[in-house]
């Protein structure tokens, strides 16, 4: 690991200033991704600004029904919180489907959003990778692609974003609250992560020095009837092959409201807006669920090693919606 200066941020403004002053400085959350990357040589900051003692550690319900999640709330606390379990079960389930008990005790809300791809070539500094070293090429194309994208990829990068939590937050229309050198801004979670295009080195729209302070969830009544389904190579402690976050409100057999997002299949949490459009106002039947899935997945482009994911995702979505409709 390259030597670096460790410093503990005194307050949010000072943390931002520390990064603005140093292009090679980074924020540190629970460390579960960053420390790993520093050891692997994937990240080599010269200054590490620990933000975990800043007072962003609460989950609060605001007067208008929104829920504000502090950036430092640990994944395990967020998953266990009563407000989250009852009003946004898909979020609690997504968190609990991710990583392990120990890692969830360490991982922060902000760090989880900012975690980087698990593409094996990205994590191995000896192989070409456009995301780690722009212009060096993509080793995954023509290589091992089981865990790679089937939606929204480019010829420069076919990696997926690995977070489960972010998939649920995408379906929930969450907003990321960010503090930068010129003040605060709010970024809709669906616009927070990027598709790779010709700049795969940029995972998100966050600028250097911008500090995530919170994530806000809208009141969103439909979310109370929601779930997260994750398909993986082993039953626990594995990243998603595909995953589905879905919320469904059926009234008298008709779909009044619906939210769907996919994980493990794109460079960002994939909000299935086409499927949602088809479903809103139609009958809650398996045929409609299948039609919605097929429409959303018409744009899917797979690699030789992950063609199975298209059908797997289709079936997972249909099963998730059927489960929600059956229990309605």
């Amino acid at each position, binding site marked *: *690991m*390259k*030597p*670096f*200066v*460790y410093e*503990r941020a005194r307050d949010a403004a000072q943390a931002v200033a520390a990064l603005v002053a140093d292009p090679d400085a980074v924020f*540190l959350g*629970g*460390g*579960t991704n960053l*420390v*790993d990357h*520093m*050891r692997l040589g994937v990240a080599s900051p010269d200054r*590490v600004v*620990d933000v*975990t003692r800043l007072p962003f550690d609460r989950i609060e319900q605001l007067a208008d029904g929104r829920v504000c999640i502090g950036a430092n709330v640990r994944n*395990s606390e967020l*998953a*266990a919180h009563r407000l989250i*379990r009852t009003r946004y079960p898909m979020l*609690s*389930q997504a968190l*609990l*489907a991710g*990583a*392990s*008990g*120990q*890692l969830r*005790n*360490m991982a922060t809300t902000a760090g989880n959003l900012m975690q980087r791809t698990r593409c094996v070539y990205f994590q191995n500094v000896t192989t070409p990778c456009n995301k780690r070293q722009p212009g060096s090429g993509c080793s995954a194309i023509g290589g091992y692609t089981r865990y790679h994208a089937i939606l929204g990829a480019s010829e420069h990068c076919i990696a997926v974003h690995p977070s489960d939590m972010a998939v649920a937050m995408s379906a929930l229309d969450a907003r990321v609250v960010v503090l930068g050198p010129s003040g605060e801004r709010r970024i809709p979670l669906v616009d927070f992560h990027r598709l790779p295009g010709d700049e795969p080195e940029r995972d998100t729209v966050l600028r250097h020095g911008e500090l995530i302070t919170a994530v806000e969830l809208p009141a969103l009544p439909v979310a109370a009837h929601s779930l997260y389904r994750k398909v993986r190579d082993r*039953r*626990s*402690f594995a990243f998603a092959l595909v995953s589905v976050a879905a919320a469904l409100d059926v009234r008298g057999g008709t779909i009044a409201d619906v939210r769907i997002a996919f994980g493990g299949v794109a460079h960002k949490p994939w909000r299935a807006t086409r499927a949602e459009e088809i479903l809103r106002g139609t009958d809650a039947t398996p045929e409609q669920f299948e039609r919605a899935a097929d429409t959303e997945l018409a744009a899917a482009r797979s690699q030789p090693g992950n063609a199975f994911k298209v059908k797997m995702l289709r079936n997972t979505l249909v099963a998730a919606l059927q489960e929600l409709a059956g229990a309605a």
Partner: protein
Amino acid sequence: MTASHFALLVDANVDVQYRCPVYKRFTAAGAPSSLERMAELYGMDSLHVVVNGARYDLEGVDSRTTLLDLIRERLHLTGSKKGCDHGQCGACTVLVNGRRINACLSLALTHDGDAITTIEGLAGGDTLHPVEAAFLEHDGFQCGYCTPGQICSAAGMLDEARQGQPSYVTDDADHVELTDAEIRERMSGNLCRCGAYVNIVAAIRDAARPAHGS
């Protein structure tokens, strides 16, 4: 840390000059004008932690040191194991302020002021922790390499369950019951190369019984 302390450290560890690129960069630019600046560049700091009830006031902790390496190499508590160093196996599990974490992915300097419990500190004197006793009773190990992590993890996990934290397989979060499926799911962050899982689950099931509750 003070400048004189850093000078001592550099003396005591001459090969730092050859290994440390920052030192090289710094000395190449001219003689050190301020040892404190060099200490800052090299990234060392003081650290105060309580480990298994004993207070440690440490100086000159390299910023790159993980909590696992600190515990093993500096405090010589070698019960916590390094299996993967990537958060994937759980052999390094310790309790920090009562919560289980992977010590291999945690920078030591982030723990200033924390209370840490390792496998060495779980028992109360000669009285084994209920999880330790249950592992003995059920042969919850073969080679024993994963065991300190398994036991610390189980101790933390039982507290989480008592506090009512749900898992991915929990049906009724208001009523957490530690079935075998729950134990397996909650312990999935601890791998055992010997495959002693059946006995590990039996030990934890036993330790979870109210009679054993601590």
